[in-house]
């Protein structure tokens, strides 16, 4: 435990040295290390820098890419851009709900999958699109989504 704490200290030390008192870059740095923003670390950050905790909390809840909860193993981001919307992106979300029982912003109870929507992935020519674990998929229909997710689930089981 004490070793872990010094690790956290080191991370914070490095982050403050690099970004000073700029809240958002500090949080981005912390998230880089922990994959999310643990409450305890944010409290330490506040004590260390004197930035009011509420300001840190506000920033952490304001921005899409900052998360106060641990991320799932597989991150599914479905594009909710306009083109994807008119070309059937909503059906992909529906399909994922049928398959995994999660809506955007939710994590499956086993912590395997998290679904989120993003404003635009910028590949409108291949709408509807989604990103799973950093890999882009375009021109999708619900059937293909099922195949992709089933393949991941199978991998998780075996």
């Amino acid at each position, binding site marked *: 435990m004490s070793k872990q704490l010094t690790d956290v200290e080191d991370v914070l030390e490095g982050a403050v040295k690099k970004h000073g008192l700029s809240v958002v870059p500090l949080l981005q740095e912390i998230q880089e290390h922990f994959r999310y923003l643990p409450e305890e670390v944010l409290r330490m950050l506040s004590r260390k820098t004197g930035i009011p905790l509420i300001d840190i909390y506000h920033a952490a809840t304001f921005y899409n890419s900052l998360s106060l909860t641990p991320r799932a193993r597989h991150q599914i981001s479905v594009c909710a851009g306009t083109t*994807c919307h008119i*070309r059937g992106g909503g059906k992909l979300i529906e399909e994922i709900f049928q398959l995994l029982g999660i809506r955007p912003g939710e994590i499956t109870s086993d912590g395997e999958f998290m679904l989120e929507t*993003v*404003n635009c992935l910028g590949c409108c020519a291949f709408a509807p699109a989604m990103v799973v674990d950093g890999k882009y998929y375009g021109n999708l229909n619900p059937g293909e989504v099922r195949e992709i997710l089933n393949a991941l689930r199978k991998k998780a089981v075996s």
Partner: protein
Amino acid sequence: MPINLIGVEPLYKELNHNTTLSLVRFLLQGGVLMNTGIRSKLAKPVDLKNLREMLKDRLDPKKQRLVVCGDTGCSVCGSRELAPAIEEVLQERGLAGSVELKVTGCLGFCEKGPLVLVFPGAVFYQQVQAEDAAEIVEKTVLRGEIVDRLLYTDPADGRKITCAYDIPFYKLQTRTLLETGWYINPLDIDDYIARGGYAALAKVLDGMPPEAVIAEIKEADLRGRGGAGFPTGLKWEFCRAAAGNEKYILCNADEGDPGAFMDRSLLEGNPHAVLEGIIIAAYAVGAKEGIIYIRIEYPTAVLKIEQAVRQARELGLLGKNILGSGFDFEVIISKGAGAFVCGEETALIRAAEGKVGEPRQKPPFPANAGFRGMPTVINNVETFVNVPLIINRGAAAYHETGTESSGGTKIFCLVGKINNSGLVEVPFGTTLRQIIFGIGGGIKNGKRFKAVQTGGPSGGCLPEEMLDLKVDFKDLAQAGSIMGSGGMIVMDEDTCVVDLARYFLQFLKSESCGKCFSCRVGIQRMLEIYDRLTTGSASIEDLDLLEELAVTVKDTSMCGLGQTSANPVLSTLRYFRDEYLAHVRDKRCPAGVCRSLFRYSIDQDSCIGCGSCAEQCHAGAIVEMEEGCYSINPELCTRCGACVEACVSDAITKG
């Protein structure tokens, strides 16, 4: 060709965890990091000229070149595997030294990706996969033959087109900003310099007073490409005149409009042009520091602009005493954490300062009190890319394209239910019809055009009658839409405008910062009305209330986001009132989108009884009544449409 790995590790570290190592490898193709070794600085403008002279052979039109589009869109459909495959083939044949492979930014015609261009001759190959690499090298590069099956076919006459410039999609455009992207490796500053890069900066620093730069930009009638179209020269002049020791340049690269990616394409395809524009702006207003605020959802663009800044610094194009002129300027990159509202300039300033990106009431305007309370010029990526062009060509020549009030060209993201999706560049004053039916090739699957939505979630929907509207800041605003940053989403008869307006409000409901009452509550209340409209429970008074509410939100909101949030509502009410009335009076959705307002049923005459629909139905709403006879239970049906897609005999109808 050995790949110089200096600088790879920091590059990799900069990527967030979503991006994989394969992306780095992909970017490394073609030896893109060759130039990260230490180089001597350019001390005088003439040094830049000499360097360009040394790089002259890069312009050799006879040299064989293979250009692969490396933009996100093409990567999605296979160019990530394609570029390494081509390189392998080139190495096998011992051509690595003589044939140049370039992974560039967006080539524009995203619809047909992945794209490959073969020079000389600009042979255009579409939908190329890794398997095709050997054939292209074998035939086109070695023997000068054309691979027929990869060519573009003109849908109008079925003719195959070889040269990219002959394809209507490209032929009808005026590609001044995008053109360079075809020839340069975005990670290599030498490519940019060879094609005249930083010449504008040298010209400015070599005896052009800041006032003259501003005068030139004013004369060119350059308007901000970020949305509102404020005259850029005027903005710079205000900032230059404002009191304050420190001044800042803030580049807005927080492109958050759904359905728009021109800024990303510019950053990924030609990052040095953006940087050059920023440096010139800094010189003109007297700024010592610049900030590029870029959204984290664009990891490749972040990587490329960081590389560009590093290279420019190495050559002395950034930093102290640029090109021996005594002018100092530094650029830092600030990564956005993801919030649409940060595209608004006062919010952008706060976000760039590392705070919560909430807008504040203007005035004071950023030109007087911006970043750290100091005078700041905020322009978006595309605006900056225009700057070197104006300086190089001169304001008068630049202004030959465009309309009287806005000079130059504008890049649009033409997407939606359109045949040729992609990035298009046209002069101001081009009509919507030319863009959609000329360049865009009309509507997908022979459907009817219904509306075009310009300017992202804050824009308006324009109907067929408005197709001859000339695209210009003023004309679009008069028609009830906005230019926005240049998204252009085309809709066909299967799109319900009521649902579309609802979609935008839904988007803005969570993307509004929530600070001011009229935007936060107004949008939610409009949504409530839309919920009634799309479920058939709205009354005719609701339409009047909606209009009154929308006007209130427009007039009384604090920032641009709120003020324009009513545009989709007001423009659809203005042009598509009939469709609203159908939802209210007849409880019917003419486009068959609003799920509560239609039902699926199986036409027993055309049903062949295969049962594939029942297999696909999650809700268990399709049951076999008797042998080979299926029917849909409307109570259980969720209207997901999976059965329609599964049906082999088109027996499932909407009604």
